[in-house]
């Protein structure tokens, strides 16, 4: 069949498909129902059938060596059809529930080796510093400069009016913004710098463990432990766990490049990343919770120390049992 005859024969099909594509795309935004879409099409068949017909014409045109402009036109139609047919249709509420009840705890348990390694890399320096400074108090000065140490001391001085960060209660919202931006950005950096053979994540885990341990050790040794623990107790469970998960995700991405197994490195990377996405969503969620608690609860000096500590312990129990017990019923 000559090209002109081919065009004359199927022109109306293509134009109808174009119209249908626009309707489908518009339907996505205005959430038009399937019935409206069917009315708009001149070809009486489902979208996927219409799309396959276009693909068929494109393949024919290629094989018969028709002109470039027709090939481009049909390629464009197929591309757009492909985009419409294979767009992801997700029910956000369903996905959220699925994520909270199953995906997130399951993903954490699936990576338990990495989560354990990241925990060790974070908590060993942390508690090492706490114990080290208890025995050799001057060790704190090998991690922080004297100015930094005096500013940490000022923040948690039991004699100060506001324990925690020095500020008025109306600045809670300001600090909320600050914590969100700062903590989540660090979480993201911990994940993505893992691509350098896991080195970035390793650095962030150890560095954060060391600095937190130094601050904690120094304050405890000074006898400032009540304001410090009172401040950290509430959000610690969420924030520290999220840091560990970020490290685990980063290590996973790094290891996928170092030890790709039987995959090509690029495929191994893409696979590891797609498996880490659940952890990344979880990290965002946990750091949001942590920022909220830190800004509106932890910094509230009027709450009793005992209440803060028991809420902190409660938070740890909730977080741990969430990851141990949830999502057991169904396998991924």
């Amino acid at each position, binding site marked *: 069949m*000559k*090209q*002109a*005859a081919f*065009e*004359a024969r199927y*022109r109306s099909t*293509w134009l109808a498909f174009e119209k249908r594509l626009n309707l489908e*795309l518009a339907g996505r935004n205005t959430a038009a129902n399937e019935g409206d879409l069917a009315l708009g099409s001149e070809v009486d068949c489902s979208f996927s059938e219409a*799309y*396959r017909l276009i*693909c068929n014409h*494109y*393949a024919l045109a*290629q094989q018969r*060596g*028709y*002109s*470039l*402009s*027709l090939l*481009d*036109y049909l*390629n*464009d139609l*197929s*591309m757009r059809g*492909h*985009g419409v047919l*294979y*767009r*992801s249709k*997700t029910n956000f509420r369903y996905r959220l529930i699925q994520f909270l009840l199953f995906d997130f705890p399951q993903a954490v348990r699936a990576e338990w080796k990495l989560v354990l390694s990241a925990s060790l890399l974070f908590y060993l320096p942390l508690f090492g510093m706490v114990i080290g400074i208890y025995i050799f108090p001057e060790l704190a000065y090998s991690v922080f400069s004297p100015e930094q140490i005096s500013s940490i001391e000022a923040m948690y001085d039991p004699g100060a009016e506001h324990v925690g960060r020095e500020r*008025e209660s*109306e*600045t*809670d*919202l*300001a*600090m*909320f*913004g*600050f914590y*969100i*931006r700062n903590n*989540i*950005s660090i979480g*993201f*950096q911990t*994940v*993505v*710098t893992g*691509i*350098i053979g896991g080195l970035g994540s390793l650095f962030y885990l150890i560095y954060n463990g060391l600095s937190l341990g130094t601050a904690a050790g120094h304050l405890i040794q000074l006898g400032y432990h009540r304001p410090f623990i009172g401040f950290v107790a509430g959000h610690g469970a969420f924030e520290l766990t999220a840091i560990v998960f970020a490290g685990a995700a980063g290590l996973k991405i790094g290891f996928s490049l170092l030890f790709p197994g039987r995959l090509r490195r690029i495929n191994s*990377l*893409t696979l590891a*990343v*797609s498996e880490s*996405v659940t952890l*990344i969503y979880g990290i965002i969620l946990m750091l949001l919770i942590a920022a909220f608690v830190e800004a509106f609860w932890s910094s509230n000096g009027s709450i009793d120390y005992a209440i803060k500590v028991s809420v902190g312990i409660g938070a740890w129990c909730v977080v741990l049992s969430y990851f141990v017990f949830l999502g057991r019923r169904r396998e991924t």
Partner: protein
Amino acid sequence: MLDTRHSIETPEGIALQLTVAGPGVRGLAFLVDLLIRGVVQLLLALLFSVLGVAGFGLFTISMFVMEWFYPVLFEVLWNGQTPGKKLMELKVVNDNATPVTWSSSLVRNLFRGVDFLPLFYITGLVSLCVNSQFKRVGDLAAGTLVIYSSPRKSMQFDSDAPARPSPIPLDLQEQQTIVSFSERMPQLSAQRRCELANILQPVIGEKDQQAVDALVEIANGIRGKR
């Protein structure tokens, strides 16, 4: 090697042709987005400054969202395009040419943190230049491509045009060359058309504008018009 066409086989058994976008045009798109973000941030800063200290908190949150999620929100909700990409006629798609998803868009944009290192996207630029699909690290990790989103092609289906048979038998490639010539004529200057058509003077036996007209008629004949 310099060809930026990239073909993707679909489950329907056809090969879609994509044109991947290089560092220059993507850099420009990024600058446009940076400018837009800067202006919006400035406006938000003015707006929130009225609210005092609490406004600072809202401003920081907005800054966080703009830093990490501006591209994600646009790419997912606006057909794979940020305003900068829209202006440069680019779009982000998954490796298999399907629309970009939340996860892949999130990943490719989080990895900007790596692409940026050590400064001004040097890592991203190097990565872009060493693979055939112009992927920065974020694209490699997320499995995404940045392609040209060609403006909608409208086909001219004109059927009545003068046609004549070719004076000698032509094989498929020769036929396609002549048809391509007739289709690309509007993009060529009159002199260039004649110059190209004159190459075939020994075959057609005509010169300059007559040769061009003859070629167009032969092309019409090949396409089956009469």
